[in-house]
């Protein structure tokens, strides 16, 4: 087995492991909720944790392409959809905590919050933008849209990542260390893409 070209069976097995590992944050929260192990303010912890994991999965998804290009391990692309869908999954959990724990399904209050508070506005926008990406994540939808249009649509994940970091940044009261770390990662991952595009243009011009 080589890292450059693992067998399809290996790729599948690794995928199964990654799938289970990606579910662990949720398992921890659910188990913690039932065993009273989520600390003093469990609802805040759940909200924060689901939000953080959304950002983590967004970063992982965005990191796969640069990692593939740098390492030559093209099979990494096989995990992109799964991680992208996990980002959407945790974002949906995060939104559920907002709708449920924060506002207890009071639609008017939720809407007011979305319109009035910039950090909620950008977070909500990011979630809305994730929905079409999740819907068009299947092979069938990819075929129906065509590669070019599908790719154009899915580039919006770059904007989503920026909105996600902004959402965190604007929410923090004082110590910006955590949001700054995510901002650094996202800026790096997007910067690499810009740099490569710039190189590509230069090569084409020659």
């Amino acid at each position, binding site marked *: 087995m080589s890292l450059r070209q693992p067998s399809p069976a290996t790729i599948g097995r690794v995928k199964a492991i990654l799938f289970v590992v990606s579910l662990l944050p949720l398992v921890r929260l659910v188990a913690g*909720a039932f065993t009273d192990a989520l*600390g*003093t*303010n*469990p*609802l*805040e912890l759940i909200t924060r944790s689901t939000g953080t994991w959304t950002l983590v999965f967004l970063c992982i998804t965005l990191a796969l392409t640069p990692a593939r290009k740098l390492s030559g391990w093209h099979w990494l692309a096989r995990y992109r959809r799964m991680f992208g869908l996990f980002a959407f999954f945790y974002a949906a959990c995060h939104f559920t905590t907002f709708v*449920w*724990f*924060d506002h*207890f399904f009071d639609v008017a*209050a939720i809407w007011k*919050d979305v319109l*009035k*508070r*910039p*950090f909620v506005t950008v977070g909500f926008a990011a979630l809305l933008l994730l929905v079409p990406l999740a819907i068009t994540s299947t092979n069938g939808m990819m075929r129906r849209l065509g590669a070019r249009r599908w790719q154009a649509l899915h580039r919006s994940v770059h904007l989503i990542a920026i909105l996600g970091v902004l959402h965190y940044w*604007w*929410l923090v*009261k*004082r*110590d910006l*260390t955590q949001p700054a770390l995510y901002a650094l990662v996202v800026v790096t991952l997007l910067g690499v893409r810009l740099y490569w595009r710039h190189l590509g243009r230069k090569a084409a011009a020659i």
Partner: protein
Amino acid sequence: MLIRNRPDIVPSEITSRQVYEGRRAFVRNLGRAAFAAAVPAVPAWAQPGPKLAGVKASTYSTIEKPTPYKDVTTYNNFYEFGTDKGDPVQYAKTLKARPWSVVVEGAVKKPRTFAIEDLLKLAGMEERVYRMRCVEGWSMVIPWTGYPLAELIRQVEPAGNAKFVEFITLADKAQMPGLHVPALAWPYVEGLRMDEAMHPLTLLTFGVYGELLPNQNGAPVRLAVPWKYGFKSGKSIVKIRFTEQMPQTSWNRAAPQEYGFYSNVNPAVDHPRWSQATERRIGEDGFFQKKRQTLPFNGYADQVASLYAGMDLKKLF
């Protein structure tokens, strides 16, 4: 009209905390006794501090259920020890609460430096069970021990031009690891208007749950101003200064549009980034409950609303 229900006994005495918290260790020790090795593993937060003696109950106490001691002493905002609410209990061990003195200066006729031992004896201790509302949208009910700040103020005789009182927290990098992060302008400064400082609800606080304050709760002396957001109650106070000018408080300097000088609990004035209409009571409000309504002046309007008569509290938030 003020309707006061006089509590017959100090709530923290209903069940002694040591007995309650020691119940598991007790059972565990029964088993261990067979092996003649009875070493109870008590976590840091459960190690009882020295008891305060001669504490009287107060009519200012709420009859609401106090938040468990564990939550009160492990979920803290005390940025001098880190910005995470779990940081203070973990890192405040380095704070040296003895020896300690508090400098009282400024526009007073009798400026004085009080040793903590003298402060503890200055007036009769009371237990005051107060609601505490954090600006972040959560609340607790805490049995504090202390006496009205007014008792101290009377001793130093404020001068005619004393309009405000400034409270300054210790800022020692050797004792407070959070000071290395410029989260706020150190030292932490808070302030009250003279009439707020003199109000009988404003408590100079030395204990919680009948014991001396644990470090993470602002040992050895702090304020408890129950009708204002929690950050208005300065912790580990080293200096009290009487001034003519409104003090520049740390949070107000950090974000003036978000934290006003008064910072009275007010459900009608939202924090610019989140609503203040509701709150979650720590240790009580569960997953399947709507958040509870926040009350004007945190439910102390009967006692303090008159201090602000004629003021536009939407502007002077």
